[in-house]
């Protein structure tokens, strides 16, 4: 552990490699977190099934790619399919928990996450999947820093997908309706907005974001049925750190988490990387609550 740390300190080039690859992964975390903050802000639901939607999007992209769909079409295919799945999930399960107690929505989405996790496990198998786009890598600083092109492309596409949604929410009529509903659902309803449809749309858009994130994850990294919950927890922690509705904060927190996680994975050993993610989330919550307690409030 200490050796690994010294290795990083003594080889700045190598440290750059670890940090850079982490930052690139962070874009995917930020994309999933943006979707979670959207659902949280509009529907007031902490969507525990978020990570499973990312994984499911990844499997849809993987299935499409292995059936001959070209790599550039994987993201739109997966995003569209996941939009439909998100829409469907809203009208089967989510609409029943929208105005319920938070515990009900957490437990219901947790149940959904088990369903999707086990379905992907049964249908696609528990193997680690990754689709090789064959784009190769580029090298910097005499080969000390290796970055796969696909990771750079994934980074850019993640930012573009998030940006498109951001513009949509800012300028389109439906986007404005979504933001109005987030501010005050009752007033929005009185002013003629069909809030139920807005909720369905929001959940569908969240699905599309997860689909985009998943398709990029399967091309640039790997997926398997059991990495859903880590994605959920990452998204949750990014939203908690950034604050609801803070897009810039989500990007910064997402990229930082990616870099931090990669460094931690290297220093502590890859087998502790997931443990690091979960422990970090607990520590962030404890720290936030400790800060809140000094102002005589609490985290709730």
């Amino acid at each position, binding site marked *: 552990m200490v050796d690994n740390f010294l290795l990083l300190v003594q080889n700045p080039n190598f440290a750059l490699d670890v940090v850079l690859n982490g930052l690139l992964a962070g874009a995917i975390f930020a994309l999933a977190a943006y979707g979670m903050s959207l659902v949280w802000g509009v529907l007031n639901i902490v969507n525990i099934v978020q990570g499973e939607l990312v994984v499911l999007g990844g499997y849809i992209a993987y299935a499409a790619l292995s059936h001959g769909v070209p790599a550039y079409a994987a993201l739109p295919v997966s995003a569209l399919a996941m939009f439909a799945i998100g829409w469907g999930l809203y009208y089967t399960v989510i609409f029943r*928990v929208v105005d319920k107690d938070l515990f009900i929505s957490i437990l219901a989405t*947790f149940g959904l996450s*088990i369903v999707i996790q*086990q379905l992907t496990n049964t249908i696609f198998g528990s193997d680690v999947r990754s689709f090789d786009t064959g784009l190769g890598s580029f090298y910097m600083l005499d080969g000390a820093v290796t970055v796969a092109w696909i990771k750079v492309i994934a980074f850019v596409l993640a930012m573009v997908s998030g940006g498109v949604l951001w513009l949509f929410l800012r300028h389109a009529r439906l986007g404005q309706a979504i933001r109005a509903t987030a501010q005050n659902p009752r007033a929005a309803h009185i002013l003629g907005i069909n809030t139920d449809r807005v909720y369905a749309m929001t959940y569908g858009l969240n699905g599309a974001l997860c689909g985009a994130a998943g398709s990029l994850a399967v091309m640039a990294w790997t997926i398997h049925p059991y990495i859903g919950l880590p994605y959920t927890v990452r998204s949750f922690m990014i939203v908690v750190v950034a604050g609801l509705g803070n897009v810039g904060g989500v990007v910064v927190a997402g990229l930082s988490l990616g870099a931090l996680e990669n460094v931690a994975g290297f220093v502590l050993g890859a*087998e*502790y990387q997931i443990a690091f993610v979960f422990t970090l*989330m607990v520590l962030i919550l404890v720290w936030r609550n400790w800060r809140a307690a000094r102002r005589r409030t609490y*985290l709730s």
Partner: protein
Amino acid sequence: MIDPVLDRLRKTPEWLVLVVLGLVSLAAPFIMPGLVTQLAFLWLMVVFAQTWDVLGGQLGYNSFGNVIFFGIGCYATAVMQRDSGLPYFDALTLGLLLSALLALVAALVFGAALLGIRGHYFAIATLGLGIAAGELAAGWDYIGAGSGMSLPLFPGELGSRELFFYFVMLAIAAVCFLTLRWLYGTRFGLAMNAIRDDEDKAEAMGLHTTAIKTVAWAISAVFLGLAGGVAGNMLGFIDPRDVAFSGATFGVWMVLMAILGGKGTLWGPVIGAIVFHITKELFWTYLLGWQRVALGVLIVLIVLFFPQGIMGWLADRRRARAGGAA
């Protein structure tokens, strides 16, 4: 049709129910010798549901990480049995004591750190805690890392092992039930319910809310730790992610059973655990390969359509029959 039976049950004094239930559970392994292990697991489920309900039902704090105390119990007993070099039963007894002690300490530490957090932040923090513990155990070589630990062989003759652990587990479940039954009737129990109903007011009335929550969590942790030590021995093998810190099975089951029976009641978790365990054992074999999908669907269905639980449903029914507005 069901109402006369329920009325009969309601009029039966509780001591009689307890005595009959006690006699039945003492005789059960001899009446159904083929099912001793399943019956022992039934008592484990009862302990799970009851201990979850202390925080989840009586205090209104929904924890998804209670399984951490069970896992600590599993490993503490196993390590004691492996390393102490004592005879089997001495090592087991000491191991169970260590399990209870470590679970207690863990609950006090985590409680002090986490129990100031409220609502869904608390739920998710505990979810993270449980999984982090499993992942850490899976990387720690001293306790067998990802490949888990095997427990020593039971020294008695064939079949006596199942019977022995059945009675140990029954004892834990019974003591747990009686302790909680007593606890819910004390001022401490009232304080717990006050916190559930309105924590700010409870605090303003002078209750030390975080201390009360932590003590309540520690009480459930002790029983979970003991149950973990025994369950590890019943299974003969512990694995960090699928047995000891298994958030997707035991960890969710305890929540589900308490809700199914009725949160915040004494008998609800017991009934929920019995109903859930019997249903699970009956249907599991027919759903080969799909049982975990079915479990997820079951969680969603119960949460969406039956959140008040069996006890809540009975109360509604009684109210409706009495002519009052439900």
